[in-house]
């Protein structure tokens, strides 16, 4: 097996170019690549398009913020494609003020669209959203007497994902519900950077228990878990 380059969080963040479509793993901050996000926030790279489950938690009262919230606060996104913005009032403010374009996608549709991009499918037919605003502008198809929406594949330029463990070849394992969108995004972007808590030797992962095969991963960032995460 071929080893993958291990780079710093800053080097990883520098690989994101202005204007890129960036997929970021995590679900309300659980399973998000926090070290790379922190460096990307410092760099301030702009005009990005975000693909993520949600715009994370940003609570101005309690001061709690996680996931992509620092990038939202920095207004680094021209557009965000997510299923939920209810825990980040700043996203909603930017949307209402016309500062940021927000596209809301049903969570299951978002997951399948990302998977479709990774799997070389043009799109999928889902019943989700039929008869709602989500169907606007989309093709409807009838299959076995049921109406479906054609939802197109959604790939990206860079995936910033988070795993619990990588081996030096880039095989990944996720922990619990921190898995969420990470394995899907690993398949769907031209460049894939995996932030991991632990790096192990090739051969330390059982081939039956690899969640993301090495061939999807381009770079590894090692960032051990800190108390701050809990």
């Amino acid at each position, binding site marked *: 097996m071929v080893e993958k380059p291990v780079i710093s969080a800053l080097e990883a963040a520098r690989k994101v170019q202005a204007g890129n479509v960036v997929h970021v793993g995590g*679900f*309300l901050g659980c399973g998000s690549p926090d070290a790379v996000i922190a460096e990307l926030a410092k760099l301030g790279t702009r005009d990005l398009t975000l693909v993520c489950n949600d715009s994370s938690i940003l609570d101005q009262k309690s001061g709690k913020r996680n996931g992509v919230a620092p990038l939202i606060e920095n207004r680094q996104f021209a557009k965000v494609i997510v299923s*939920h*913005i209810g825990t980040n009032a700043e996203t909603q403010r930017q949307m209402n003020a016309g500062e940021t374009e*927000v596209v*809301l996608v*049903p969570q299951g549709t978002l997951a399948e669209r990302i998977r479709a991009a990774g799997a070389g499918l043009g799109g999928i037919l*889902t019943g989700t*959203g039929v008869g709602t605003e989500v169907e606007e502008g989309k093709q409807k198809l009838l299959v076995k007497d049921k109406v479906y929406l054609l939802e197109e594949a959604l790939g990206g330029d860079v995936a910033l994902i988070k795993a619990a463990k990588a081996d030096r070849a880039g095989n990944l394992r996720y922990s619990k519900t921190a898995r*969420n969108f990470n394995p899907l995004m690993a398949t769907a972007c031209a460049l894939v950077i995996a932030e991991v808590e632990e790096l192990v030797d090739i051969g330390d992962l059982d081939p039956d228990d690899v969640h993301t095969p090495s061939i999807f991963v381009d770079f590894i960032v090692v960032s051990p878990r800190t108390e701050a995460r809990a």
Partner: protein
Amino acid sequence: MTEYVENKEIIARRIARMFHTGDVVNLGIGLPTLVGNYVPEGVTVILQSENGLIGLGPRPEPGKEDPDLTNAGGQPVSIQTGGAFFDSATSFGIIRGGHVDYTVLGVLEVDQEANLANYKIPGKMVPGMGGAMDLVAGSRVVVAATTHLEKSGASKLKRRCSLPLTAAGQVDFVVTDVGFFQIVGGRFHLKEWFEPYDPEWIMAHTDADVVVDDDSAACKDL
């Protein structure tokens, strides 16, 4: 006439009685989460959480929370012995594929055409649909859980939703704090009423067509 007093517990109690051992159930954030507290003894349901697990368990004791183990609301939870974790595509494959028996979720509005609105008040509040659209479109049985009236006194059950829909024609049951309704043929069928409310009170306080079937009855010992 009886005065309306909001009672979320009775809603959760009644919904919890719908389940049988082995049912796979997804409980939405807020009121639906309470349902988990009232599942009758001897009935074992399997809770699915759309962020990627089967076998959702209770919140751990303080200090035992794992940042890698949360529910769809981002709160710390646990997993039951025999549970499993999976990615979001698998999770929604379970949901969309009809492998979830019951989804219970809150509403802003629900109407007699089985439509449900709970993700957006245009110009005011747009949290987004999260997993709700898939849950309502994909689950075998959809149960809307809601107080019967708004704080303003307006009926949450409508002839036709005025807000953007979460899903069209997918709601099977509505359980409020005054009664248990099944939606059939474009009407709310009141199957059970919760005393002190009675069919007369309920019809007077519901802005939709309510039918009382011959087999309808008061629900005892909730």
